[in-house]
């Protein structure tokens, strides 16, 4: 009798979780595509609202698409695509998967998974940043290094990530500044090391400098009206 009720409750929980999973999966995806709008509700309001601030920021969306390692705490049906070792369409508790950050965060909030520190913040990377932050290929490790680190630090409870980010950015900022403002030519290799955030910074400096140069050199100060240079067409 007791065992039966226990099993029933478990099944109930499982189906509830499945429902949540599936609905989050779909809703978030639709929302990301801009097809629906998720209204902020309940005590979540403030965090939701803050998230809304850059809701339509494509970089924010792409940053949240980065994969992070996670471990399922519960057995979950219907999500076999994360761990397709068999055709049960089911994930066992304790199985390691890689989830996009936006899904991992939601599942983490619902206590369904444990999020681990992504490999781009591992010991090796940290040592390389300590040694010479300016020449670490962060883009290869994670194109949204700072954004992901900023978002994931409170989730995994790793207080050292913030410091790694700050040290890396402080050193690399100088490099970007020099390359963007002072150097005339940059090796294309330099750009391939930068994360998306740094590339944006570099581009901001570059584009305003080129716009100024263009204005100074002048270009056509007087533009010909489009009707003027036109030849009359022969009438057939």
């Amino acid at each position, binding site marked *: 009798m007791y065992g039966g009720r226990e099993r029933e409750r478990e099944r109930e929980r499982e189906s509830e979780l499945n429902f949540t999973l599936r609905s989050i999966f779909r809703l978030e995806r639709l929302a990301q595509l801009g097809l629906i709008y998720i209204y902020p509700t309940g005590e979540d309001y403030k965090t939701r609202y803050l998230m809304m601030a850059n809701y339509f920021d494509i970089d924010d969306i792409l940053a949240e698409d980065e994969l992070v390692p996670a471990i399922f705490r519960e057995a979950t049906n219907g999500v076999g695509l994360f761990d397709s070792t068999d055709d049960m369409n089911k994930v066992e508790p304790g199985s390691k998967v890689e989830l996009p950050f936006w899904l991992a965060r939601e599942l983490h909030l619902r206590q369904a998974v444990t999020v681990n520190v992504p490999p781009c913040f591992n010991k090796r990377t940290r040592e390389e940043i*300590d040694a010479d932050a300016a020449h670490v290929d962060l883009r290869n490790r994670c194109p949204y290094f*700072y954004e992901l680190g*900023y978002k994931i*630090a*409170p989730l995994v409870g790793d*207080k*050292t*990530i*913030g*410091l790694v*980010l*700050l*040290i890396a*950015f*402080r050193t690399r*900022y*100088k490099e970007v*500044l*020099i390359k*963007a*403002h*002072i150097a005339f030519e940059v090796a294309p290799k330099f750009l391939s090391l930068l994360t998306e*955030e740094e590339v*944006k*910074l570099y581009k*901001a*400096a570059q*584009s*305003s*400098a080129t*716009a*100024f140069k*263009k*204005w*100074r050199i*002048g270009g056509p*100060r007087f533009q010909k009206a489009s009707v003027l240079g036109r030849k009359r067409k022969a009438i057939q």
Partner: protein
Amino acid sequence: MASQSDPHGSAFSAAELEFLAEDEMVEIVPNMRMDPLNLISGDFGPFRPQIATQVPLWLAVALKKRGKCTIRLPDWMSVEKLTQVLEAERDSARDFQPLPFHYVEIARLLFDHARDDIPDIYMVRSLIEDIKDVRFHKIGTGLEIISERTYAVKLLNLSAMEVNIVRPFVAKALETFYKLDSPEMIQDAERRPDARSQAADRGPRRPLRPR
């Protein structure tokens, strides 16, 4: 900041700055007779031959194009003044010399439209180019001090064009530093006894650049 050219409003385009610079006053010597102009921005004139009068740059350029006046070179654009400024700029590693806020644009407009009114035009032009290059280099090296301890950057005597060029970069950099140095990211890590070695390297609070 209202700007037509940039949807995010973070910068003016150079052409917009040029437009703003056209409101600066210059002195012209008309060679025609005309009643005072009563415009929204003020009354200009009356215009009498050989009697100097103050008009906005756009009006001066318009009259000049029609051959109705000569433009008097502003004081600061004389070769002696510019030489002094250039020397002072080179001598001081940090400070910028006071120049008109729109000096780049005004010089450009005068070079384009009033080249026959400028004595030693090649000299003046190359002096202004040199001054501009020295100042830009100074800005570039000056920005290296930005770090997570910088909350603002004080730029005395910087001109409109110079500010406008560095604005997107500086704003983004300060924003990122602010974000990464936010209390929830850093504070606790510093307090930990086994905090990483860099925690000590963060150093004392850096004061703003003394200017």
